[in-house]
């Protein structure tokens, strides 16, 4: 999902103006539409709250220490899941990608397991790892593992053969080959795999938190919902979406800078 075209670097002032006009226009239409629905009474009162209370809720939320405690718990889960899932995925991907026999034997399983919804394993993970953070980390890591393993195996096969011969001609050791040639040579597919893994790991871990937990942003969503505090619920979701978007953008930036080098 790399957006190759972005208006930030646009040097053409006329085009930049059009871009901004369209953006502002869309934003205004969305906001007015929202407000209109809110006041029309199509939905139950409070289900679509007015913009003012939502803004106020966001303002209160970012000052609330409880929010940061929950954010920290979720961030920890995701980071652990991403670390464990990616490390295992890269290791498996290198092994499978370098041996055509293993690739033919096992890659179909990984390929078809990768997009299956991981959340259904939650009851099982609770049995294995308990109701705390460990079961969410396990789910997130499972989400990440398959995508990263596939991307790495694919990346291994696409490495320019001559770079491997260069390494051998300078008599690089196996470790040197892995860290100075294989990994940098397939950094783009691997980073893109990690980014995809991040997306599904976030969804899965947050959903698991809404189902059963006592901390994290998903837990906070359910608490807010049970109080039927709709403006806060909207505010919280907006903040979560922004954070997820930022995480994705940061990983995307990594992959893009790698692209240009």
């Amino acid at each position: 999902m790399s957006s190759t075209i972005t208006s930030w670097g646009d040097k053409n002032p006329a085009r930049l103006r059009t871009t901004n006009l369209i953006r502002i226009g869309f934003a205004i239409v969305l906001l007015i539409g929202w407000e209109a629905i809110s006041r029309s009474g199509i939905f139950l009162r409070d289900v679509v709250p007015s913009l003012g209370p939502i803004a106020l809720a966001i303002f209160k939320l970012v000052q609330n220490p409880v929010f940061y405690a929950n954010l920290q718990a979720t961030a920890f889960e995701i980071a652990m899941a991403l670390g464990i899932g990616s490390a295992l995925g890269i290791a498996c991907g290198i092994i499978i990608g370098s041996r055509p026999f293993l690739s033919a034997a096992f890659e179909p399983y990984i390929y078809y397991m990768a997009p299956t919804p991981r959340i259904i394993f939650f009851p099982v993970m609770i049995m294995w790892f308990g109701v705390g953070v460990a079961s969410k980390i396990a789910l997130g890591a499972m989400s990440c593992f398959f995508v990263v393993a596939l991307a790495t195996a694919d990346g291994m096969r696409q490495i320019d053969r001559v770079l491997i011969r260069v390494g051998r001609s300078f008599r690089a050791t196996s470790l040197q080959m892995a860290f100075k040639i294989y990994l940098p040579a397939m950094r783009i597919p691997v980073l893109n795999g990690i980014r995809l893994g991040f997306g599904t790991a976030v969804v899965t871990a947050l959903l698991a938190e809404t189902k059963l937990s006592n901390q994290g942003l998903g837990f906070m969503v359910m608490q807010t919902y049970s109080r039927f505090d709709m403006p806060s619920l909207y505010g919280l979701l907006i903040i979560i979406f922004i954070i997820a978007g930022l995480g994705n953008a940061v990983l995307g930036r990594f992959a893009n800078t790698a692209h240009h080098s």
Partner: protein
Amino acid sequence: MTLAAPSTTHAVQSQSKDNALTVDNVYKQFGANDAPVIAVDHMSFDVRQGEFVTVIGPSGCGKSTLFSIIGGLMGDYQGQVRVGNEPINGPHPAVGMVFQEESTFPWRNVIENVAFPLELNGIGKAERHERAQHFINMVGLAGFEKRLPSELSGGMRQRVSIARTLVSQPKILLMDEPFAALDEQTRLLLGDKITQIQQELNQTTLLITHNLTEAVQLSDRIVVMTYRPGRVKRIIDIDLPRPRTSDVVSSAAFGKYVAEIWGDLREEASRGMADSESHAVKDAARG
């Protein structure tokens, strides 16, 4: 410059003390024993200390196989390749390879690319950059140290590869058509650069190519290969004066050498062409 050998020979070179590299009766076949493709058929020649030798042959004659064998990247052959008196067994530190394909690391800038072999040997950053800088200057890329390969032209990238190999200070520089992807003019100018560096370092060099001009322009001796099986057809001394520049291509002596070698090669090249055409016809018939 050496003029010791007779101008043409099929015989195994006598083993002299100043041989930097000896290719001794090397034989390599591919495929099953009942229908083998013989890539290299009992080839023997040597490269003396400080000498520039070129192996020339038509496409598909087994040049690249020979390159991989001498570089130690291909095993399972008969005969011997010796560095000095030591038989090689895998990539040898005394042999530095430059590949035909684009082989710079796209994620490293010029100086990091060139310093790569020093990094593998655990040499500290300051020292390896200093030594890399020396060879960057030598190949004429001073000022481009921080550029990435994607920001350089094909000729510049190939010079980065050459500097990267030179920095490991190989006794023997082994190059496989390093200019194959470049245009004719760049090729001539880079040839000058190579000549200059080779003379400056007194660098023993073995070049593998199919390009006649390049071979005559650069070499002290040329080994002409036959097309399948790849044998030594003839070894020719190139008796053109040094210091030599690309201007030499307009001289009469140069033309004479080119014509002479082409006379040898034409038959081989046309056999190669007929062969690949018949393969294409067979493939087409097979669907």
